């Protein structure tokens, strides 16, 4: 068996009001070439203006990955000719990326593995090309969209580790609120480097470029491991090269060899004056970084005693996890809060295919609901009814309970009066009461409930009936 070593270069589009160096809208649209500014077409005389918001978002991800941040923000030009690159160069970061030497912890089947981050840098996306038989069309909507490229060290050793890293990285991006990170919208793309070796020394690096989904990353890795293993087993040498993945077949194909490598002639972008990165600025950004997925999962299990399954369900979507956390912070018992959130709430969301932000429910309502049940004001069966009403109407549980007249009668004397009334009305049965016959007691409970229209606290009613019946007529 050969030792597999994998490194990843993950590109993720960042959300921002405008593009990274131009004032055009950064947003999805069906209409080609509608979000385009002069800068995005590379007209003579254009100048880039760095988008502060995008820079801050990139710094946020950098810090969330424990990277070292630079003392100033500068950009570099990467020079090459391609029809999707209107300026003939891409503005990117090479000299001083927004982050270097960081790490991200991932959970591979319960084992925590630290993935080292080589660097993360902010750059502009290219235009997109649509190829037809005899011509191609260029859509400049994508030209200039902020792109964050994160490069791992070659420290992943299986497909599973690579995919777990990608999922963790995606959640980090989403938790940081800087991108939807959806590969189906082309917001995430990936280059994968795979090398095989018999020793601890790395083998020849084979890069598979521009993979559009995590699923395809897995396929590319599988294919490369198989392909390179076969070469090595037959005594061959793996060529250092760049390959591409055929989405149809899952096979990779030669694109270019190392000798054809493009010299990008990087140099510092002269039109963007360096902006100092101050401690205050970093502190401001740090405050906006939320607790990340894996940390939350650990907290839920260790501090709240939740199961791994429930914890995973809760942290899958940050907003659900935030909601749960707020319930707990308001004083709700974590297990009860978890039951409501993972059970009724997420059930409702899944069933209706909506997000938590789209329903008029607030954490305080879960707290009230749990309190009502705890105080035995309503039964847990009633609580479900209240919940259903609450999620539809956004009314507070107390209001719903009142409106529906659900308030349980827990007042001892009130229940006692009704119990005595029922016994008198059913004098004969009461006298013949035999504690062995459980059906008899159910009959009396039923009578009390009928009189109170179900509002009498069942436990109390039962207790009182037993006591009174045992003394009745004696």
């Amino acid at each position, binding site marked *: 068996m050969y030792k597999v070593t994998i490194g990843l270069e993950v590109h993720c589009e960042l959300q921002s009001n405008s593009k990274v160096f131009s004032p055009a809208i950064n947003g999805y649209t069906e209409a080609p070439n509608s979000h385009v500014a002069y800068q995005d077409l*590379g007209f*003579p*005389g254009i100048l880039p203006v760095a988008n502060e918001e995008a820079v801050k978002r990139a710094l946020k991800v950098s810090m969330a990955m424990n990277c070292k941040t630079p003392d100033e923000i500068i950009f570099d030009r990467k*020079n090459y000719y391609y029809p999707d690159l209107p300026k003939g*160069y891409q503005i990117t970061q090479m000299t001083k990326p927004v982050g270097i030497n960081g790490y991200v912890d991932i959970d591979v089947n319960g084992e925590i593995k630290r993935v080292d981050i080589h660097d993360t840098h902010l750059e502009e996306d290219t235009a997109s090309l649509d190829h037809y038989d005899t011509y191609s069309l260029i859509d400049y909507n994508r030209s200039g969209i902020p792109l964050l490229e994160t490069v791992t060290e070659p420290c992943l050793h299986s497909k599973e580790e690579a995919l777990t890293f990608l999922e963790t990285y995606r959640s980090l991006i989403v938790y940081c609120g800087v991108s939807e990170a959806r590969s189906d919208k082309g917001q995430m793309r990936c280059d994968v480097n795979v090398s095989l070796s018999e020793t601890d020394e790395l083998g020849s690096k084979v890069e598979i470029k521009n993979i559009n989904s995590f699923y395809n990353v897995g396929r590319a890795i599988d294919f490369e491991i198989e392909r390179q293993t076969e070469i090595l087993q037959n005594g061959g040498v793996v060529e250092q090269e760049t390959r591409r993945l055929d989405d149809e077949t899952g096979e990779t194909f030669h694109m270019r060899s190392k000798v054809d490598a493009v010299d990008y002639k990087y*140099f510092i972008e002269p039109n963007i*004056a360096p902006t100092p990165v101050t401690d205050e600025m970093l502190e401001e950004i740090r405050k906006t970084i939320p607790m990340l997925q894996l940390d939350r999962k650990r907290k839920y299990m260790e501090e709240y005693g939740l199961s791994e399954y429930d914890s995973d369900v809760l942290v899958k979507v940050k907003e659900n996890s935030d909601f749960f956390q707020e319930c707990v912070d308001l004083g709700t018992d974590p297990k009860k809060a978890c039951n409501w959130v993972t059970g009724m709430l997420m059930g409702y969301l899944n069933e209706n295919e909506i997000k938590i932000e789209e329903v008029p429910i607030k954490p305080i309502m879960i707290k009230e609901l749990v309190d009502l049940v705890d105080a035995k004001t309503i039964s847990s069966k009633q609580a479900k009814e209240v919940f259903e009403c609450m999620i539809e109407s956004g009314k507070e549980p107390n209001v719903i309970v009142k409106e529906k007249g659900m308030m349980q009668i827990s007042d001892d004397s009130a229940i006692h009066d009704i119990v005595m009334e029922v016994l008198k009305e059913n004098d004969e049965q009461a006298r013949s009461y035999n504690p062995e016959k459980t059906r008899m007691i159910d009959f009396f409970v039923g009578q009390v409930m009928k009189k109170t229209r179900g509002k009498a606290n069942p436990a109390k009613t039962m207790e009182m009936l037993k006591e009174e019946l045992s003394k009745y007529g004696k």
Partner: protein
Amino acid sequence: MSYLDKSLKEIHQALQEGKVTSKELTEEALKRAHEYQEELNSFVTILDDAKEEKVTDNVLSGIPCAIKDNFSTKGVLTTASSNILSDYVPVFDATAVAKLKDAGMVMIGKTVLDELAMGGTGTTGHTGIVKNPWDPTRMIGGSSAGSAAAVARGIVPYALGSDTGDSIRKPAGYGGVVGYKPTYGLVSRWGLFAFASSLDHVGCFAKTVEDAAYVIDNIKGIDEKDMTSFDSSNVNIVDNLNNDVAGKKLFYIKEIVDELKEDKKYYDNFLKVLDYAKELGMEVKEESIDGNILRGIYPSYMAISCAEATSNNSNLTGIPFGNRKDGSTPDEVMINTRTEGFSELIRRRFVIGSFILQKENQEKLFLNAQRIRRLIVDKVTDLFKTYDGCIMPNAGSIAPKFDEEHDRLSDKYLLLENHLGIGNFGGFPSITIPSGLVDNMPVAINITGPIMTDDVVFNIANKLEEKIGFVPLSKKEEK
């Protein structure tokens, strides 16, 4: 004398008093543009449909001007004097142009430059060579050749130019007009076709220092579209033109001026200007800078400018805009477009620039050039702690004949003909003013000052101009 030949302030007054109209001035400028086009070839485009503008309180309102053809002008052909852009009509205005429009200027034409502003002769534009109005057998210099010639000839009172090495100041000196390159960032570069971004400056030509001051006051200012521009609302050049300059300190660089000594006519002219400075109460001293560093100005300028130029002009592929040539693949389209679109000189610069930026050459060529740039800027900045400005001969000679060749490796060439690049290296404000005639051709001096002291540089130049009493060609012939 036509009102067109008067100072901007005088023309403005005449406009306000109704002695002349914007329409009359515009027609006169257009007439002159056509009249001299065959002789001088200043213009790529003469805007015959230029309309008069309303006269306001702005001194520039209603007055014609010309714009170098590397400024983006909305709806007006802008070629950068290159075949690759021979049909390019921009969709937006350069900030400097927009500001002049706001001021009420009347643009009567776009002027010829050396192709893509790369060159110092005015002979490489796609519409032919530009000639010197003082002597059409001589060049006007470049790259802002057409703007220099148009102002020298008196076709327009002022014109916009751009200056990357000395592209405003050199031709201004050869044409006997004032040429100004401000502090880097004082005037926005938005819409100026980039040659070498770290060296490019927007500036102007005018017949007098005062006229140039009005132009710069109108086009300066922070621009959200140019991150290297800065807020200069506290800088008012016109208001400080006539301050007393007594006590101001100037220096000249010994190693460069020494090269002038062998030619007494030029040297005497320079000494005379130094005497004027002293008469005005200014101190003038000689300072020494290591000749090895000074000899590095030209090669490091070439290295940096070619490197940046090859990248800046990579947008000219014929794909989103420009003169596209056919090809069977996108690569072929780009290669054919660029091969046919650029002259050989330009391709040569791109090859040099590309070579310099290659990974294996960057350290030795590109980064060393930047180190030399840094050394010179640090040295001059250090001198500016003591001095208000550096006063130098603008060039080593009068405008050369078209067939004259420089020995590019001689000290005379390396030092005297290229020291203006110091102003671009450091982003220093730098003005060239005529200082007299040698062999009936204008010669000039240059004053360069510390960054952000544009008003002081103008002030010193204005005072010296009074002393020198140079008569521009356009006025000379009226007499």
